[in-house]
């Protein structure tokens, strides 16, 4: 099944506690598509998520754990989650601190497989 960008992002943003979802070009951190609540800075999220994913990929490979398939940054006041999709695209979501990460992970993986 292939989803439109809008439909794909909507599947993520309808999860309670999600402030925004994006598709990001992993190489340069540019926004491919976004669905964000007011106040969420899309360009910053995209650039920072892509940069963090690159750093973590190096650490993961050096540790012998292969290529990352899921990243979850937990902070005091919120959460950032990223799932690599084919063609170097990252599916990224920003959420509240207590967002259901398990559900978010499942939905983002489905989106990563469907958005090609």
């Amino acid at each position: 099944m292939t989803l439109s960008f809008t439909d794909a992002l909507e599947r993520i943003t309808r999860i309670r506690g999600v402030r925004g979802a994006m598709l990001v070009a992993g190489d340069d951190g540019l926004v491919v598509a976004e669905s964000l609540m007011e106040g969420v800075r899309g360009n910053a999220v995209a650039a920072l998520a892509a940069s963090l994913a690159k750093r973590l990929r190096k650490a993961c490979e050096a540790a012998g754990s292969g290529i990352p398939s899921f990243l979850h940054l937990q902070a005091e006041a919120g959460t950032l989650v990223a799932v690599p999709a084919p063609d170097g695209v990252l599916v990224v979501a920003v959420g509240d601190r207590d967002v259901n990460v398990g559900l978010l992970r499942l939905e983002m993986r489905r989106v990563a497989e469907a958005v090609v």
Partner: protein
Amino acid sequence: MVVEPTAEVPLEAIVEGIEAVPAEPPAPAGQDRTPWAGLEGGGGRGVLLVDRRGLLLRGELTGAEGREVGEEVAAYLAGAAHEAERTARLLGLGAWRSVLVEGGTGNLLLARPTSETVLLLVRDREMPQGRLTVLADRACRSARHWLGEQRP
């Protein structure tokens, strides 16, 4: 392998700000009380404690081909922790607490025992992520205790 802090990274700076850690009961006779006591099982590949500049303080990590990769990974962790801090701050998420990375063959969890150190726990993929988080909390407590013991 244990790498002690160098003159460039004074131990006082690393242990500065850590909370007072209550004394742990003595280890049972015949048991070596390591900083990672109780964390060895469950498909563990290693635990690293690293300072902000990527220098290994304590721990070991076995890579894909069975060789020790602790120092190499420690160098990458400093950059990853810095990026996590920057990301959380600039996005208004507050201080970062942990980063979970699900890899093809193993899971990594980065945590902050203190503001000056990063802890990495690596486990096989089969370990549930929730359990990994619990183990990381325990490892952070052990790391803070160990750092407290290093005070001059």
